[in-house]
């Protein structure tokens, strides 16, 4: 019954959580419209990062727990844009433009590594991400950037952990064409950008290469027998994921108003992974619907639970519950996938 409706346990948990919290928020007189506005911003802010998991998932490489690699490429792009003092929308565009080639290079190296650990990509990616962060810390501490707005205020050398984008391009997309509707601020430009990203990914998976990638993800042996260049497709998937991740952090940073360096990217892969699993992706073929639904559901719980928890005076519970949900869903997905592969095997 559950399967026929397309609803699985993770979505059910989140939905129940969300609905009960919405009810509570209503009773506690928390403005639902402002919550909804925040939820929309959050959707896009994190949406592109979540979207970046799709190419690797569809190519059968698994969840990109090495997201910090992609994020680093994006951060470098952002820093370059700030370093050249490009402001406004052009600044954001420049950051993305700088980030893309960097992401391509990093993604290529990352892909080569992942290609030699076939079958154990997820765990290896996790540790590539973890070890990449201190490596980049090293770089940030000595990075030869020259815009004083990014450098340590006392030392005058090396990057600050947090760089303000107020004078550059903070919230440029958020405010672009945004309008009010029934008291909800609709960030039209932001949503449009996200829609464009989704569309690009959607179109890609309709092309010959995209179709081949999905086939590779579904059945690697089949792809091999059909004469596809598997390692090239996998590298392409990883590079695409890395580029999208880099763009994702640019969107995130402009909406957030700060560039966060050093340890900030370390744990960013896990909420993204959780979001896409909530959306109903089962570790293989993932659709845009999974991305949008998952990000929305997952991020909205964050948006709503904070104010409610404070109103109820049990603030800790909400935060810890959220952590439990994040990891619980990933674990559930792993266990569930294990069960499904077993069943699939049995059916054939």
């Amino acid at each position, binding site marked *: 019954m559950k399967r026929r409706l397309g609803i699985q346990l993770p979505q059910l948990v989140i939905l129940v959580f969300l609905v009960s919290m919405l009810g509570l928020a209503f009773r506690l007189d928390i403005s639902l419209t402002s919550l909804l506005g925040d939820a929309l911003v959050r959707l896009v802010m994190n949406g592109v990062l979540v979207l970046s998991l799709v190419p690797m998932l569809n190519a059968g490489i698994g969840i990109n727990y090495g997201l910090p690699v992609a994020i680093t490429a994006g951060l470098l792009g952002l820093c370059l844009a700030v370093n050249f003092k490009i402001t406004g929308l052009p600044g954001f565009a420049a950051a993305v433009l700088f980030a893309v080639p960097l992401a391509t290079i990093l993604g290529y190296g990352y892909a080569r590594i992942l290609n030699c650990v076939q079958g154990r990509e997820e765990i290896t990616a996790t540790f590539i991400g973890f070890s990449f962060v201190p490596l980049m810390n090293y770089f940030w501490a000595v990075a030869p950037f020259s815009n004083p707005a990014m450098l340590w205020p006392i030392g005058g050398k090396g990057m600050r952990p947090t760089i*303000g984008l*107020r004078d550059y391009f903070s919230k440029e997309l958020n405010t672009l064409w945004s309008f009010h509707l029934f008291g909800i601020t609709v960030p039209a430009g932001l949503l449009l950008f996200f829609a464009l990203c989704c569309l690009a990914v959607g179109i890609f998976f309709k092309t010959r290469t995209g179709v081949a990638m999905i086939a590779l993800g579904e059945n690697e042996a089949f792809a091999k027998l059909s004469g596809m260049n598997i390692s090239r497709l996998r590298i392409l998937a990883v590079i695409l994921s890395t580029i999208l991740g880099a763009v994702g952090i640019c969107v995130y940073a402009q909406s957030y108003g700060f560039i966060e360096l050093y340890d*900030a990217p370390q744990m960013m892969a896990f909420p993204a992974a959780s979001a896409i699993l909530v959306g109903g992706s089962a570790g293989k073929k993932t659709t845009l619907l999974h991305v949008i639904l998952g990000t929305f559901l997952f991020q909205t719980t964050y948006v709503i639970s904070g104010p409610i928890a404070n109103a109820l005076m049990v603030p800790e519970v909400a935060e810890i519950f959220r952590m439990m949900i994040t990891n619980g869903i990933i674990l559930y997905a792993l266990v569930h996938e294990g069960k499904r592969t077993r069943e699939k095997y049995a059916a054939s």
Partner: protein
Amino acid sequence: MSNSKRPIILAVLLTLFSISGVFAATPSYKIGIVTPTLSASEDEFRGAVLVANKYPGMIKHLVLPDHFSEEQETAITQILSLGDDPEIKAVVICAGYSGILPAIEKIKAKRPEMVVITAPIWDDPDMMAKYIDLSLDTDWVQRGITIPTKAQAMGAKTFIHYSFPTHMAKEVLAKRRDKMKETCGKIGMTFVEISTPDPTTGGGRSPMLQFLQEDIPRQIAKYGKDTAIFGTNCPMQDVIIAKALELKFIMPEQCCPTPTQGFPAAMGLEITEKDAGNFAKINEQIKEKAAATGTTGRLSTWPVAVGYFFPEFAARLAMLKVEGKLPSFDLAVIEPVAREVAGVDVRFTPMKPGLNNYFLIIMDSIIY
């Protein structure tokens, strides 16, 4: 100690400084300074670097792990390694962490003559007073009174306190919160306590900061712009100050009061390498930016970075002590040194009545 003796002691100290300056080229001993990493806290780190540059060859600067609470044993080893170096005669620890005391106990057990100054660490005060020669800290609890009072003076009607579970699990921070609540009640301000996602567990600081981004406008919409916002965690300050520029509410003081925290990122201060570390210049820049954004009189902090001040101050005291020029760490002795190092007035109070080696400081404020 009576007031009449002060000038004499001051004179003695000044001579000592000049003498130590002469002999600085050929130091016969070293002082170890322990700070967090650059990315964890710049002020202490740069403060230590500053001392190291002032007294070349005399300072051994070590850093604690980035994730201190998860890598306690590395931290302990770092501190113990200082105790192992026979050239090192004094250890100065500037890190707002708890759990360092066992390392100090071990050093003291091995070398009782070692001078240990902490500025600050957060272990059990009574135990600290027992093992540590001199403990310094900002007056957390007292700030629970001064901050709301200052906020009211700046025009605040509501006081919002942002924190999260693991911070409120720290005794001093919890006490300060209670004190703030009490003070607000006394002086007739509304006290609002809000909990953010916890940055020390799991998701890192991003969820916390994201929450602040969304919650501050909500709160200001609710309480109006004559609201003072205080956050207990250093990374929060970036967002709070940035939002203050936007929404014009009051930021009476950061958790670690210094012009170098929050302001540079939020205001996008462009501090050239030449001006780096020049607090007068930095304060001037902040003032300009505040005027430009129409937040004059809404932002305040201490004029000198306390974390930047502590390493040098403590190192100087340690030198005097090691050279035998200081019989005890008495208020009357350390206050002039503090003024000389900081350039502003610093007020000391004993941590508890009767403790003569644990002092808390409060500095004058600057309102931009």
